[in-house]
C-alpha cells in the first residue's frame, strides 16, 4: 500500500489546501502542483478578496493551461522519483537475496509462527492446500484486526499507547533480530567473536538506529537503517512462513492493500483522512523517505507552530507504529502497522518533512526558491518487506535459482514503475503492493515452471537465442 506522497505544498498555502484536498493526497509531481500553487498565489496577490472563492476557477484555468507543460515535467520528475525508489528497493532485495544464498539459517525450517499454526508437512496435497489456506486466512485476519485497532487508537487519540508500541517494536527489531542475524552470519563464515565485542557492536547499532529513525539523523543513515530493518523483517517472514502459505499470503495481502487503501470505508483510507483532517503526520518512522528537503517549503506560514505540532504528533505516530510492530513481533502483525504507516504517508502533508526540518535546522530563508525537484517520494516499509519476501522466497525455493530470482526482481521493478505512473496520473494515495506482487507472482510461477527448464536446456547445449 504505499502511496508515494511526495509533497507538502498543501501547507505552503494554508488556504489553498482546503480547496482541493482530493488532488493533493499524494503527488509525486510536485512541480506541477507547485506551479499551480504559484499561479494561484500570484492571482491571490492580484485579487486578495477572492482568495477562497476565486481559486477553484483560477485553478481550473491554470490546470488547463499548464497541462501540457505539466505532462512534460511530470514525465521528467516522475522518472526521477521512480529512480529514487529503484535504488532502495533494489538494495533491500539484494541484501535479502545475498543473505538467503549464504546464511543457511534463513532457509532452515525451525518451526512456524503462532499466526500460521497449520503445518504443511501433510500426507496429501489437498490437506496441504487446505492448511495453507487456513494459515493465510488466520494471518490476514490478524492483520485486519491490528489495522482496525490502530485506526481506532488513532481516532481516539491514544497516542501514548501507539508511541510506546512503536518504540518497543523497533527496539526489538534493532537489537534482538540484528543480534540473531549477526550471530548467524558469524556462524556461516566461521568468525570467532567474543560476547563483549558483540555487545558493543549491537548496542551501538541499535542505539544509533533508534536515534536515526525516531529522532534526528543524517538522511542517508536513516535510509540505510530503514532498509536494514525491512530486510531483517523480510528474512523473518521468509524463514518462518511455509511455502504455500507465503505465496498465498502475498496474494491476499495485495488484494487487502488494494481494498484497504481505495475503498471509501477502508481502514487505511480512514486513517489517512483522519490524519489529514487533523493536519498531522502519520507514523514517519516507518516510512522510507527519499529526501528531507521538503521541509523548506513548509516554512511559509507559521513554521514554528507547525514544527512543534508536527513534532509531537510525529512522536505519537511513531509510537503507534512501533507498538503495532511489537505485537506482531513474531510477525504477522507488522503488516497492518506498516500498511497503516504507508497510508499515513499518503497524508504526507507534513509527516516527516516537518520533524526533519526541525531536526535538520534547515535555513528558512530559501523557501520560495526551493527546487521542486528536491521533493522526494515516500514508500512504506511494508512494501519493502513484501517485495523482499517475494524475491527472497523465489531465491530460496525456486528450482530455477537465479533465473527466477532475476525475473521476480525485474517484475517488481516494473510494477513499481507502473504504480508510480498511476500515481502521477491519479494524484492520490495508491497501494503499491498489488501491481508489483501480481507481476512478481506471475513471473515466479511462469519462470520456474516454463522458462527455467527451457533456459537450462539452452545453456546445456550452448544454444543462444
Amino acid at each position, binding site marked *: 500500500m504505499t502511496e508515494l506522497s511526495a509533497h507538502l505544498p498543501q501547507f505552503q498555502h494554508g488556504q489553498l489546501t482546503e480547496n482541493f484536498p482530493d488532488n493533493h493526497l499524494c503527488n509525486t509531481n510536485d512541480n506541477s502542483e507547485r506551479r499551480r500553487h504559484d499561479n494561484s498565489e500570484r492571482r491571490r496577490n492580484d485579487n486578495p478578496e477572492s482568495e477562497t472563492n476565486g481559486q477553484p476557477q483560477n485553478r481550473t484555468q491554470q490546470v488547463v493551461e499548464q497541462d*501540457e507543460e505539466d*505532462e*512534460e*515535467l*511530470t*514525465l*521528467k520528475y*516522475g*522518472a*526521477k522519483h*521512480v*529512480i529514487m525508489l*529503484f535504488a532502495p528497493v533494489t538494495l533491500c532485495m539484494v541484501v535479502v537475496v545475498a543473505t538467503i544464498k549464504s546464511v543457511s539459517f534463513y532457509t532452515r525450517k525451525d518451526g512456524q509462527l503462532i499466526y500460521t499454526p497449520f503445518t504443511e508437512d501433510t500426507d496429501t496435497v489437498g490437506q496441504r492446500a487446505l492448511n495453507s489456506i487456513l494459515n493465510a486466512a488466520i494471518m490476514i485476519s490478524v492483520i485486519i484486526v491490528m489495522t482496525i485497532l490502530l485506526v481506532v487508537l488513532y481516532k481516539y487519540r491514544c497516542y501514548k499507547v501507539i508511541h510506546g508500541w512503536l518504540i518497543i517494536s523497533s527496539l526489538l527489531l534493532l537489537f534482538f533480530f540484528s543480534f540473531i542475524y549477526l550471530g548467524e552470519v558469524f556462524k556461516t563464515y566461521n568468525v570467532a567473536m567474543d560476547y563483549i565485542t558483540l555487545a558493543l557492536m549491537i548496542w551501538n547499532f541499535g542505539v544509533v538506529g533508534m536515534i536515526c529513525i525516531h529522532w534526528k539523523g543524517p538522511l542517508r543513515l536513516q535510509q540505510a537503517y530503514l532498509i536494514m530493518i525491512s530486510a531483517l523483517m523480510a528474512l523473518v517472514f521468509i524463514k518462518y512462513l511455509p511455502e504455500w502459505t507465503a505465496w498465498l499470503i502475498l496474494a491476499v495481502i495485495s488484494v487487502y492493500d488494494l481494498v484497504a487503501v481505495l475503498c471509501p470505508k477502508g481502514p487505511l483510507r480512514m486513517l489517512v483522512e483522519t490524519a489529514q483532517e487533523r493536519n498531522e503526520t502519520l507514523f514517519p518512522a516507518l516510512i522510507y523517505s527519499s529526501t528531507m528537503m521538503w521541509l523548506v517549503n513548509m516554512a511559509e506560514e507559521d513554521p514554528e507552530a507547525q514544527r512543534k505540532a508536527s513534532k509531537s504528533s510525529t512522536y505519537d505516530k511513531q509510537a503507534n507504529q512501533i507498538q503495532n510492530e511489537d505485537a506482531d513481533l513474531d510477525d504477522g502483525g507488522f503488516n497492518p502497522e506498516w500498511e497503516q504507516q504507508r497510508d499515513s504517508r499518503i497524508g504526507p502533508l507534513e509527516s516527516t518533512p516537518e520533524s526533519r526540518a526541525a531536526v535538520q535546522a534547515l535555513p528558512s530563508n530559501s523557501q520560495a526558491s526551493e527546487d521542486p525537484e528536491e521533493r522526494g517520494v515516500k514508500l512504506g516499509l511494508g512494501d519493502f518487506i513484501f517485495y523482499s519476501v517475494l524475491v527472497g522466497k523465489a531465491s530460496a525455493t525456486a528450482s530455477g*535459482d*537465479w*533465473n527466477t530470482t*532475476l525475473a521476480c526482481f*525485474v517484475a517488481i*521493478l*516494473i510494477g513499481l*514503475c*507502473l504504480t508510480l*505512473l498511476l500515481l502521477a496520473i491519479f494524484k492520490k494515495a495508491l497501494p503499491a503492493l498489488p501491481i508489483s506482487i501480481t507481476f512478481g507472482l506471475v513471473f515466479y510461477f511462469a519462470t520456474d515452471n516454463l*522458462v527455467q527448464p527451457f*533456459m*537450462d536446456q*539452452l*545453456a*546445456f*547445449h*550452448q*544454444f*543462444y*537465442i
Partner: protein
Amino acid sequence: MTLAVFFGCSFIAFGPALGLCLFSVVREPLRVIILVAGKAIEGLVALSEDGCSPISIQQMAYVAGLGFGLMSGAFSMINLLADALGPGTVGIHGDSQLYFLTSAFMTMVMIFLHTFWGILFFHGCETQRWWEMVAVIFTHLIVSGLGSRVRQAPSQDPEGPSGALSLSCSLPALPALWCCQLGPTVAFSAISFLFSVIGGPPFVPAGGRCPGAPAARE
C-alpha cells in the same frame, strides 16, 4: 572453479554492456526506466510528445535494445556464473574445457546483437521499411540456427544422460566451434552495428525537433 573464472567470464559477458549502461543510461532516469520496463513506458513518453520529447525515439530504441540484450544475457549466463563459483572441473568428462569462456563470449555478442537489432527494428518500424524488420528477424534466426547446426553435426541420440554425454563429447574442436558459431555471430553483430550507425547514432540531440529539451533536461 576459481573466482578468476567467475569474474573473468562475467566481465567478458557483461563488461561492454555495463559500460554502455554506465556511460549512457545511468545518468538519465527516463532511460533507466525504459531499460527496465521496455516499451511499457512508451505510452508515457508519447504523452509528452508535444514537440518536446524528453527522450528521442532513437534513444528509446537503443535503451530498449540494451535492456533486452542484458536480460537475455543475464538469463543465459547467470546460472553458469553461479556454478563457476562452486566446486568442479570444466570438461572433466571430455567436453571442451573452454565451455565457460565460449559461453561468456557468445553472451557478450548476443547482448550487442540485441542492442543493434533493437535499433534497427525501431528504425524499420518508424520509417516503414519492411525489409529492415525482415532482415532483423532473418539474422536473428540465422544466429540461433548456427548454434543448433554446430551441435547437431554428429548425429547422436540427444536424449538421456548417456546421449547427452556422447553428444557433448562429439562437440567439434574449439577452432571449428569459433568459426562456425562465434565468427558469423560477431560478423552479424558488426554488420548490424554499422547499419544502426547509418540509421543515426542514438544520441544525436534531437536539437532540430526540440530546442527546449536539452535545456529543460538539466
